[in-house]
């Protein structure tokens, strides 16, 4: 045996020879073999990015520069930055105390408030914008109520036009960003080991000292993660800012497209936007990485709650106010608007006329979610179980940093050039949803796979099942709820998508959000818009509710 042992080793001197100092590898070892399988799947994301770079590189530099100057890009950056920072601060002020109160204190009704914390995600932010516009605009509900109360007409009483413009947009974006902060902070709080707090107490710190010296530092990654989500959302949002007539990069790009469909100038405007989004993502990566690290091996047990004492009343008032802002007022406005429409028959007839749009929405969102889940599923499985997809997985996530507006016009250019038959069909929308939602889908897949230890799959292999059989009999049943949740999440996101859809929708193929947007832009936030919005909220809300049931509170983070 021993002599034989030498022979194969001699036959393969590569394995025997002393390890040579290895060059730094840019690619994991047999990279073409690993690449070829998964990389084509990342094409819906990679192609638009490459196309954007190509468009920008083809443009005359001076012309590009002039178009940027003409668009007052420097001013735009400052304006949008101010908008995003204001909204982020506002979202943290709403979301973080909310999370702390329900996770760590004895505030009354915390179970309900915990559930309500994630619920506003079911309301698309642009619906919120519509509601607050209807409520707070000049001549809106509040103005009319004030005039009625004074016994005068709205013309005779002054009312500040605050909702349209940057502050209004920041107000609405902050309210609808708050759930993201709530979820990340609440997640971090419930993962926080109560033993740490107990340790700090034994070391001589009071409840306030524990909060300041233990809880808050441990929450910092979550606050930053949640805040970054809101901040980025403000940069890429199209629905809210367009409805509230605020000029940002996305509306500027859209207007450039409307005004003569100038792809190069849209590309020029896209570059600073994409650059800022990517820079923010890169800057937050180390922070987010640590935040996710903190989840490992942590416990979910509940520690002792902080007794609020006389502060219970004010805390409850805060939560009620926050719920009023995120859910009560928007939904109340919608319902009130509908009563203005007149008879129930009128409402019903109008709702029925929306059915084709509902069908369109369900069709593209369903197909889009399924395609996204399929692609993310294959890449995720390769990545976490086969150490493959080394390029495809990160590339897929790059699509997250592509604002819907930018993705929309690059897909227009791409399909016109390479797939003219696809252009102007719902397939383009599905491609867009794959690119936009592959990242949350991949994260969902990763979380679902993480619930199934690889060892279980190996146990199935040893017991005589092939790799596909093992995946089918062990991974799918165990990760099933997670996979279903991922589909629902993608479905809900696709259902409410507007920025890319508004550019890519085929002629005569309006989805419900598109219908809502065009109606509101043309007519204003009138009662009919409220009907469309309510139908949309119902449609998006159902998968969200199912998702909340499936996954507890860890969605959207």
């Amino acid at each position: 045996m021993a002599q034989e042992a030498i022979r194969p080793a001699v036959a393969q001197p590569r394995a025997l020879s002393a390890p040579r100092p290895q060059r730094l590898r840019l690619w994991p070892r047999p990279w073409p073999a690993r690449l070829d399988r998964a990389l084509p799947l990342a094409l819906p994301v990679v192609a638009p990015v490459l196309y954007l770079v190509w468009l920008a590189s083809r443009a005359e530099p001076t012309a590009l520069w002039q178009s940027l100057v003409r668009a007052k890009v420097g001013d735009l950056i400052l304006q949008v930055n101010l908008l995003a920072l204001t909204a982020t601060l506002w979202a943290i002020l709403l979301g973080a105390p909310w999370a702390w109160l329900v996770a760590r204190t004895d505030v009354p009704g915390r179970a309900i408030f915990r559930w309500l914390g994630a619920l506003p995600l079911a309301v698309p932010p642009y619906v919120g914008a519509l509601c607050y516009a209807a409520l707070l605009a000049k001549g809106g509900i509040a103005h009319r109520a004030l005039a009625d109360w004074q016994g005068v007409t709205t013309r005779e009483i002054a009312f500040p036009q605050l909702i349209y413009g940057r502050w209004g947009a920041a107000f609405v974006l902050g309210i609808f960003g708050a759930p993201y902060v709530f979820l990340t902070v609440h997640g971090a709080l419930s993962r926080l080991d109560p033993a740490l707090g107990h340790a700090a107490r034994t070391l001589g710190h009071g409840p306030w000292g524990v909060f300041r010296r233990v809880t808050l530092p441990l929450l910092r990654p979550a606050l930053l993660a949640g805040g970054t989500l809101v901040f980025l959302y403000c940069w890429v949002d199209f629905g809210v800012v367009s409805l509230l007539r605020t000029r940002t990069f996305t509306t500027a790009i859209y207007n450039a497209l409307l005004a003569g469909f100038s792809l190069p100038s849209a590309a020029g405007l896209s570059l600073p936007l994409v650059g800022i989004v990517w820079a923010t993502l890169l800057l937050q990566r180390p922070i987010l990485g640590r935040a996710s690290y903190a989840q490992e091996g942590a416990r979910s047990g509940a520690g002792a709650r902080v007794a609020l004492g006389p502060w219970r009343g004010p805390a409850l008032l805060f939560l009620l106010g926050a719920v009023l802002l995120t859910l009560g007022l928007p939904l109340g406005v919608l319902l009130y608007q509908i009563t203005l429409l007149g008879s129930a028959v009128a409402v019903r007839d109008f709702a029925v006329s929306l059915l084709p749009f509902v069908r369109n929405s369900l069709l593209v969102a369903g197909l889009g979610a399924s395609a996204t889940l399929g692609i993310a599923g294959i890449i995720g499985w390769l990545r976490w179980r086969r150490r493959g997809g080394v390029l495809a997985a990160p590339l897929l996530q790059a699509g997250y940093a592509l604002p819907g507006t930018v993705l929309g016009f690059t897909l227009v250019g791409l399909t016109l050039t390479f797939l003219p038959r696809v252009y102007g069909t719902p397939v383009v929308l599905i491609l867009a949803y794959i690119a936009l939602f592959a990242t949350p889908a991949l994260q969902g897949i990763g979380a679902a796979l993480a619930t199934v230890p690889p060892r279980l799959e190996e146990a199935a292999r040893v017991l005589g099942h092939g790799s596909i059989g093992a995946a089918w009999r062990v991974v799918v049943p165990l990760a099933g709820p997670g996979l279903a949740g991922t589909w629902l999440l993608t479905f809900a996101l696709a259902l409410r998508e507007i920025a890319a859809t508004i550019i890519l929708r085929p002629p005569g193929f309006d989805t419900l959000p598109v219908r809502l947007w065009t109606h509101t832009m043309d007519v204003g936030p009138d009662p009919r818009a409220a009907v469309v919005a309510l139908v949309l909220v119902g449609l998006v809300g159902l998968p969200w509710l199912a998702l909340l049931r499936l996954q507890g509170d860890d969605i959207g983070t």
Partner: protein
Amino acid sequence: MTTGPVLSRGHSAAQNASVLVVDGLRKRYGGIAALDGVSLAVGRGEIVALLGPSGCGKTTTLRLLTGFEQPDAGTITIAGRPVAGAGHWVPPERRGIGMVFQEHALFPHLRVVENVAFGLRGLSRGARTARVAEVLDFVELGGCARRYPHELSGGQRQRVALARALAPQPTVILFDEPFSSLDADLRVALRAEVRAILRDCHATAIFVTHDQEEAFAIADRIAVLHRGRIVQCGTAEELYDRPTDRFVADFIGQADFVPGTVHGATIDTELGPVLNWQSLPNGAAVEVMVRPERLNMQPNPQGYGQIAERVFRGRELVYSVCLASGRRVHSVQPPDVAFAPGDRVAVTLSNLPTPAFRV
């Protein structure tokens, strides 16, 4: 326990034939050699432990045996069939290997019966049910068949994992630190139980462990792995009394090492002359292994040893003795032999042969 052989496949062939042969196995991760030429042959019905500290290559060996990794060089043969290396490759599901995983890896979505039946493929429904019942009876878990894994105790889970691995009658069963997740008392009890079950069904088994007590308790033969190589393979007594490698001498049991010089048939050390039974060459500088139970002490005011420390261990007292050179050695004494720290003692080594290692 039932009487019929639970592992009939392991019973039919010649008893002394090697069921598992590993030859010159090498595996690198990045630039680091995890396995650097491991060769091992396991006989039918034999229980072998792969023992070593963490990072020694135990887990890599196991993953190569199961087929979750491919070797860079070397071959693996199971029941005469090459399964890896030299152009052969058999995937894990077709190797006829059973495995008991660390933390058991029971399928949480399946009942005990379904877990045990998971590896029984190509059998009729009736045959499968009968086999599951037989194996569950064998591990004395017949009453828990309808339960889910989370409804079982740690010891029961361990036995389900064993039953699941035994059910398809594998050629070899591999154990990956199977007792590490259990508490100490249960661990001792289960070791004996698992050994009895393996014996009863004439199973060939390989245990991977970092716990020498466990290896001693369960294995016929122990292979000590160090830095990707098997440094010594033998019975527990061989490893303890006649380690052929300085690492093994240090790793197995407790030992001190005292420098010495070979003078013909003896080795001169601080503790007096020691028999040069290994025929080490004259003049060689060596280190002599000193097991604490081999070190005798007599009270002697002129002795060159001084008691530095005393630790009471219940059944024994462990003394740390400071020699004239300042070197410390340990001595185990019955609890009635009492020295106090500071006492001077004469230290001698019992004249049983003790190994020495070239430095």
